[in-house]
């Protein structure tokens, strides 16, 4: 069935199965990227994967309700370690590459990037 404009972004992207398909691709990219890998290299890989899944669900417009306060609290320790705009740029770039790789259309990738962009100030605690 053709996606219709009445579907949410999350539905158009394919919902949870699409998140599952994208999460490994995305996490592999951030872990392999010298610009940002140090922020993602947790001792507990399962926990990191779960975090990335929550992140992708959020930027897909899916059912994860993080408040600005949650985003601030969750990234404060990374800001202390030097997280800045250049890293957010890199993550949004890798997010776009990942979605392209799993076959998402450009106009939806742009919407996802827009949602990620809207979290920038909270992530960087500004």
């Amino acid at each position, binding site marked *: 069935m053709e996606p219709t404009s009445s579907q949410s972004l999350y539905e158009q992207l394919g919902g949870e199965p699409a998140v599952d398909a994208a999460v*490994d691709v995305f*996490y592999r990219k951030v872990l392999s990227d010298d610009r940002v890998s140090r922020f993602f290299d947790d001792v507990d*890989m399962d926990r990191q994967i779960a975090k990335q*899944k*929550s992140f992708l*669900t959020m930027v897909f417009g*899916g059912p994860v309700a993080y408040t600005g306060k949650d985003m601030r609290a969750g990234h404060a320790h990374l800001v202390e370690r030097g997280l800045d705009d250049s890293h957010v740029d890199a993550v949004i770039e890798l997010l776009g590459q990942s979605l392209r790789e799993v076959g998402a259309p450009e106009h939806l990738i742009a919407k996802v990037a827009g949602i990620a962009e809207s979290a920038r100030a909270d992530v960087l605690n500004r």
Partner: protein
Amino acid sequence: MPGITFEGRTYPREQSESVLDALLRNGVQAPHSCKAGSCGSCLMRAEQGVVPARAQAGLKDSWRSQGYFLACVCHPDGDLAISKVGSDAELGATLADLRLIGAGVMRVRLHCDAALSFRPGQYVTLVREGGLARSYSIASLPEESAIELHVRRVEGGQMSTWLHETASVGDRVSVIGPSGECFYVPGKEDQPLLLVGTGTGLAPLYGILRDALRHGHRGPIHLFHGALHRGGLYLTEELRRIADRYSHVEYTPAVLNGTAEDDLAVGAIDDVVLRRFPKLAGWRGYVCGDPALVKLLRKKLFLSGMGSREIYADAFVPAAQTS
């Protein structure tokens, strides 16, 4: 109204509520965070009743097969009896055999007072008189009469020193468990399996290998066992015998220090594995042993294409030293 039984009490659940919401509404302090089936904080285990597939979506196969589910997205049709993750009873046991099977590695066999339901590769916590407790992986199969553990002698380690020096057959202990999600799950019989461990990380892998064969696994199975020196390898004859008997099983012992020989790879275990298999998309992996190495290997296997949900790891964290 369907009910949820938890820790001996039954709570009513509204048809529209998730299991988590019903618990919270009834005043049960259940851990949770995203409430969207994403973060995994609300993981629980079903003892009785049918868990809908949605509540297990995204979980590893070995978790599903044990009844684990996410309470926040669980809307069962009927009653459900559930428990917290990791609440197990203690079972009495007798030491049945103690045998040195490698340099500093004691094979401990236990007879439990009642049947212990486990999957090879899971671990139990062994408790000695006085309460000293340490966890060890299970190397035996359920149909074997004894539970087999491999205990490496740790300098200053209370339990391992006791088992190596003082304990004797007939001594009473108890076991708690089993726990752990590092075990073979039937259903993908043609998938290639990679088993990698160092030291007594071989114990769970030895169990998983034989469990896979017992289940008729047909895909290739590659076992890599690493040690510092040749003397740190053990069960080599037994593992060679298995590899000779099953054409789809390959066994590679590897040492960090030594010279390359026909029957031995030399180098860091992660390098040895990835030289042999640089691309691992579609594989399932089991990684056991030293925590730093487990972390490194998980990452390397993942970056080599193995799916995050296909990687099962068990890091052997040493007990804190107490005087």
